[in-house]
């Protein structure tokens, strides 16, 4: 059905093009809101729509003023700093704990595998607002609410399920006899891990890490609940901005976020190809 067969009748033709049009409209719906904010963020005026000058592509209608505002405004700069103070640390924590646990979980001898997996995956399944409320109550009870480490712990907990899922998926295609071969040649468990297992599951580790990173980087509800105003992150600042006085700076930030996600997407695609090539033994 990729193309029309030569014997297609009028009805087939009609359906073929109607179907493609419908799909085109849905793709348009998916991508249009993201594309439209990019030119809007260069608007020289404080308007949320295209001015006539912008449509006529006059250079004077475009400006970098909203990006300048983002780079000079102390609130946004603090938010940016906080985001990069929180997300990488939370990611390292969840990747470290998650990778070790995923190796244990993939062992055929793991006791209570199903129940343990359910517990480890649960942060992904419970709606965020419930996790956030629960964490807020519990963290204030043990007295860490409103601190930097409370946010790190919460974000690391939210990120680990993704690490577990991607790494166990990678390990499912992992040939256990390689470990035995390494042991046979005299490598200890740690050496085996770093020189045999690690390189093979690395794509899974990195993509799990990216998932964990974006979970933390893009998270508002939990950080708003367990963090203090000193921990305002980029999305939190955007949330506040959208609720109080919406400015075009938010669109500039959103455009930067889109650029970041394009980078992530490319990285993941490269990793996917690499891992496919490794598993099948030929370049993909």
């Amino acid at each position: 059905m990729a193309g029309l067969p030569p014997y297609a009748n009028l009805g087939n033709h009609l359906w073929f093009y109607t179907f493609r049009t419908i799909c085109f409209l849905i793709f348009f719906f998916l991508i249009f809101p993201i594309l439209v904010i990019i030119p809007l963020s260069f608007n020289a005026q404080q308007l949320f729509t295209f001015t006539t000058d912008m449509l006529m592509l006059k250079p004077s209608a475009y400006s970098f003023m909203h990006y300048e505002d983002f780079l000079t405004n102390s609130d946004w700069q603090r938010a940016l700093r906080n985001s990069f103070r929180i997300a990488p640390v939370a990611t390292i924590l969840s990747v470290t704990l998650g990778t070790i646990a995923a190796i244990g979980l993939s062992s055929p001898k793991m006791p209570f595998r199903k129940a343990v997996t359910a517990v480890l995956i649960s942060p992904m399944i419970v709606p965020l607002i419930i996790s956030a409320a629960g964490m807020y109550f519990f963290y204030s009870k043990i007295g860490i609410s409103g601190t930097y480490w409370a946010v790190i712990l919460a974000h690391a907990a939210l990120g680990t399920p993704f690490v577990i899922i991607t790494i166990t998926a990678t390990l499912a295609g992992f040939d256990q006899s390689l470990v035995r071969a390494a042991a046979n040649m005299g490598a200890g468990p740690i050496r085996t891990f770093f020189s045999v297992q690690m390189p093979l599951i690395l794509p899974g580790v990195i993509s799990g890490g990216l998932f964990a990173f974006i979970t933390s980087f893009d998270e508002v509800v939990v950080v708003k609940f367990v963090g203090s105003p000193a921990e305002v992150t980029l999305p939190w600042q955007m949330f506040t901005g959208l609720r109080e006085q919406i400015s075009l700076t938010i669109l500039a930030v959103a455009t930067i976020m889109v650029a970041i996600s394009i980078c992530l997407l490319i990285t993941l695609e490269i990793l996917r190809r690499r891992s496919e090539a490794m598993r099948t033994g030929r370049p993909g």
Partner: protein
Amino acid sequence: MSDQELSPSTGLVLAADGTPLKTKLRQAERAQRLRAAMLVAPLLLFILVTFVSPIFDMLYRSVDNQLVPDVLANTSKVIGDWDASKTDTPDEAVFRAFAEDLLVATKARQHTRVGSRLNYETAGISSLFRKTGRQIKKFDFDQPLKPQFLAMDDKWGETEIWQTIKRFSGSLTMGYYYAALDLKNTADGVEMLPENQRQYLMLFWRTLWMSMLITGLCFSLAFPVAYLLAILPMKSSNLLMILVLLPFWTSLLARTSAWKVLLQREGVINDTLVFLRLVPADGRLELINNSFGTIVAMTHILLPFMIMPLFSVMRTIPPSYVRAARSLGATEFTSFWRIYFPQTISGIGAGCILVFILAIGYYITPELVGGRTGVFISSRIAYHVLSSLNWGLAAALGSLLLIGVLVVYWLYDRIVGIDNVKLG
């Protein structure tokens, strides 16, 4: 076979050190099991502390009433003897116990907390407690205390106040759940709140039907796209997949702000409609801050979560089945409906449960684009946690939502089987 030999006496296979091979094997297996468990243990512990305990803490908090029997320790012991159907107010003993409790509580500044706790159930108690707390030191404990209470504020003569104290003197309460379901536990049993005070049932209902609508919309938009992606050659489908993955990886806030900007009265969509003369310039559409805004934005945000599981299932369906049906004389529609569609069920199930569960717990997007008519129960939970500080009610609302989610999982597991859920 150099490291094992047959034991001449028993016929058992022995390892090099002379122990039976079975024992040795069992030891090795135990070591492997221990090793696997040790690897998982740190994360398990971490999740138990940082995530599972908070959830259980919330569940407990939704029924926790320890504060009242702790602070009103003497009162809660004797108030059980009072029967509201016989006398309107408790007798002197209860008043005395209450006065003693209050004297201790005011020193520890606990009486206002109990007051605001009981105020959730009966309005006016908080201010009554505050007022009495200020006066209690002037009371003469050698005289009967009941008249002094009544002289200070005749509210202490109201049966309802004492009934509330009696009802909530236990260490566990269902009060928050009643409040979360727009019920009231009165002396005559549990009854619905008056029409104009109900809010949570309506919000639960709205959360439910809007989530179902969003799931349905996502499904009807995702199915054609996933189908197209599955039948196209790898090269073009990979290219089109970018259009799905880019929104998926783009920050939630970026997408929400895009919709906030697009749907404004002076936004791009209204401008285009006016330009095309589809709507008059003075009759711009209200597209945002209502349920329409929430539905459009959330459908857009959750659509990739539906496309990806559908696509991953559809890709594995061999096209030869449909061709076989066609060659056996089935019409195009029959071959699709009877042959193709049933094979996509597991993908549909996975996508729908994913989108539905994400939708009912959504907070950010409804809060920002939903206005008054498009917010979900989540925004009330956030309000009670962060603003009104009625944590018990927030916990009860959250617990109800959690129970709802678990019921959906359970139903899904019964109907489709949870193992069929694939991510991406």
